[in-house]
């Protein structure tokens, strides 16, 4: 049972344009959502997070939007750069601190930035 879904296995975007990666979830108990970026042969690295009580969080070129009623979040990268080419994982956490929850991950979207 996939509680976090990333329905696009891959996405190709031209350099300088906006990249939009989508994520859907089914468990309304999730209270934090995180995006991770992964290069081949490396571990996932944390990018940005958002609390379930917020609808937007911005950090430089990265913005995450959360639509709680639709159980949908998206990661916007603008402008897209060649170094952004990687696999992006959406993840969810069930508790806000105090509990050593494992993160629930989506399957990932492979973002390819075309020069």
């Amino acid at each position: 049972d996939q509680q976090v879904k990333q329905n696009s296995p891959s996405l190709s975007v031209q350099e300088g344009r906006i990249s939009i990666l989508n994520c859907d979830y089914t468990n309304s108990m999730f209270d934090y959502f995180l995006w991770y970026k992964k290069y081949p042969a490396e571990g996932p690295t944390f990018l940005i997070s958002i609390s379930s009580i917020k609808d937007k969080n911005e950090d430089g070129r990265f913005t995450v939007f959360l639509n709680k009623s639709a159980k949908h979040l998206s990661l916007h990268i603008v402008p897209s750069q060649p170094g952004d080419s990687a696999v992006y994982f959406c993840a969810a956490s069930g508790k806000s601190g105090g509990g050593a929850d494992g993160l629930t991950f989506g399957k990932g979207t492979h973002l390819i930035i075309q020069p």
Partner: protein
Amino acid sequence: DTAVSQTPKYLVTQMGNDKSIKCEQNLGHDTMYWYKQDSKKFLKIMFSYNNKELIINETVPNRFSPKSPDKAHLNLHINSLELGDSAVYFCASSQLAGVVNIQYFGAGTRLSVL
């Protein structure tokens, strides 16, 4: 200096063998985790350890046993390896004092069981 390091990076072994994967973190975090990424690319939590105490054990076969000699280390022992154990195993750590549980990952250990 690598924050979360795992050894070995690659492990090729025969079915039925026993093997260990080591993990160390130098971030001063109080919680460590093991994840498995299978052939379908899903990253799934296996265990977490907080102050030497097992917190989660997600329906993992008891052939898998985490061992934490101290809070900077969480090793994974696997007995009687099976073909289906072939996967990439990631170690991670986090500090639960924060509001959001940001986990920091090692580079992974690719295990191939022949």
